[in-house]
């Protein structure tokens, strides 16, 4: 049973990959395919949150920060690509004569941009995580701190109109590394890259969860002190998961830009960060597929309900959150197990199988 389970999960990733990469592009309209691409970006960030929060117990409420690092790196590159040799249009509006800010300059390079999308979140999360975990900051303090960072970064971006586009954000990208973004074929390609990255992230966490590191991470989540007394430094274990989550958020942010065509502080601030968490909680934070599916579901709800009934949508998502936390603390992905348990009937001795199932949830 425990031998079979990981390969079942791998099969699940395969099915998911076929649905995203083959079925979706052939059945969905361009509009919905691009929407699905957007949900995939959030799902990539959500997979990271599942790693840090679901398995690692770190409630990362400010993933918008790392989402922003990737998104703005990409957006700066695409803006410069569109502007050619000149200064981006929105900067000229505020001060026609001023030169390009120094930190924009390296983003002309494709290699630098790609590197920045990977290295910036790793370095930022590495420093932040090191400082926090070595000082044993955890629980609510950790959550509030990360949330505050997201607010701070969004405020900073809002207030630096000339350097970052402020509240209007960066938009009107014409090219994506040389490909014309208006061309539907190229847009499909961008979607496929995003969906492929999501599948890759799932594969990475699949291997992590079944590795010794995955077991150690769960152990650290449940009894950090005990892990310390086995000779590990829990700070390092948490740091790896936190940095992994940051990297995934950054990748999600980077792909968000060519797919949606605009990035603004609203996409990286407190509300956006919490919405990412909501999707993960909804789907089941500790499961393999829960975070990604939850994020896609919340994204879909937002674009369908959120556009037809915007006032009601906020309440619905709030209500959904309460219902899930109250009745399904392990998210929707725990439904099948619950269903099986209910069908087995209350008469049978449930203790052992129930615990084994929990265990499988951890190892799968």
């Amino acid at each position, binding site marked *: 049973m425990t031998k079979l389970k990981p390969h079942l999960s791998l099969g699940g990733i395969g099915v998911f990959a076929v649905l995203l990469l083959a079925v979706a592009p052939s059945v969905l309209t361009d509009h919905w395919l691009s929407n699905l691409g957007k949900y995939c970006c959030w799902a990539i960030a959500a997979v990271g949150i599942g790693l840090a929060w679901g398995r690692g117990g770190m409630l990362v409420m400010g993933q918008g920060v790392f989402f922003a690092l990737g998104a703005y790196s990409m957006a700066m590159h695409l803006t410069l690509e569109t502007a050619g040799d000149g200064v981006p249009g929105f900067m000229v509006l505020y001060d026609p004569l001023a030169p390009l800010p120094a930190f924009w300059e390296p983003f002309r390079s494709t290699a630098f941009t790609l590197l920045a999308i990977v290295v910036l979140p790793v370095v930022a999360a590495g420093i932040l995580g090191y400082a926090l975990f070595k000082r044993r900051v955890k629980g609510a303090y950790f959550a509030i701190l990360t949330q505050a960072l997201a607010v701070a970064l969004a405020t900073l971006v809002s207030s630096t109109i000339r350097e970052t586009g402020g509240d209007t954000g960066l938009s009107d990208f014409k090219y994506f590394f040389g490909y014309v973004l208006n061309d539907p074929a190229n847009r499909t390609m961008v979607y496929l890259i995003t969906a492929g990255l999501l599948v890759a992230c799932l594969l990475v966490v699949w291997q992590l969860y079944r590795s*010794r590191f995955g077991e150690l991470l769960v152990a650290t989540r449940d009894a950090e002190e005990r892990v*310390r007394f086995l000779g590990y430094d829990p700070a390092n274990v948490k740091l790896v998961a936190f940095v992994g989550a940051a990297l995934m958020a950054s990748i999600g942010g980077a792909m968000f830009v060519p797919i949606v065509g605009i990035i603004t502080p609203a996409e990286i601030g407190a509300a956006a960060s919490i919405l990412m968490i909501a999707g993960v909680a909804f789907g089941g934070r500790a499961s393999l597929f829960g975070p990604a599916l939850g994020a896609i579901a919340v994204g879909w709800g937002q674009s369908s309900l959120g556009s037809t009934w915007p006032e009601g949508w906020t309440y619905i998502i709030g209500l959904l959150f309460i219902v899930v936390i109250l009745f399904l603390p392990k998210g929707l992905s725990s439904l099948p197990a619950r269903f099986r348990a209910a069908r087995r009937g209350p008469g049978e001795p449930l203790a052992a199988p129930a615990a084994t199932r929990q265990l499988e949830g951890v190892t799968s």
Partner: protein
Amino acid sequence: MTTPSSSGDSLVVTDLHVEFSGFVAVGGVSFDAHPGEVRFLIGPNGAGKTTCIDAITGLSAATGSAKLGEQELLGRPVHKIVRLGVGRTFQTASVFNELSVLQNLDIAAGRHRRWTSLLRTRRGVDPSIMQALEETGLVDELATPAGILSHGQKQWLEIAMLLVQDAQVLLLDEPVAGMSHDERTATGELLQRIAAKRIVLVVEHDMDFMRRYATRVTVLHQGKVLSQGTVAEVQADPKVQEVYLGTAGAATTAAMAAVPEEAAAELANLQEEDSHA
């Protein structure tokens, strides 16, 4: 710098002091423990036994000295002390409930592994893990989630974790609390086997268990060493009798008043032993 101690080294604690915001929990305790003996640390509630272990393992800041061989333990971070070969259990069994017995042990064995091996999946069972399972009688529970083990089994799992961790020093905080008589006997015999090559220091309230398995005993009272020696010597010590009889004056009775029934049981045990001696 952090090379594990070689077997054969002794644990020597000298003039250990621990203060909690002005309150002296341990005030100048000295004792030593050697491989080959089952060393006991006893005393009434609040005597400072757990605090001594906390200090040695780096959980509480302390002054004085606690040396394992040539290595000073005090002042190092917890995980570094562990890497020197010092392992401990907790008064309340603390295992990873969601993980299986095997996974628990695998994590305990992990500190000898490279980082890269962490990213791979476990294949098979380490020989050291199998050995520890047999030693502690948990072979049949290999795949059982630790959370549903019985109380006694959890404590054995903790000891097994120390074994695979290859700890040279085992500091056990009340390892037989809540165990049945047979389980206590099994644990006592296990400790005797383990103690052949390692330092075993046991904190216990159970006087009967102490009498059966202790080679040397240190009695703590209000953060100080009251008496030290073999079981017979300690029991013959009038100061120890005073503390356990509760006749040492108002100050000493305060600590015992917390759990009168336990103190009474210990008292009965001691008196019984006295009449035998």
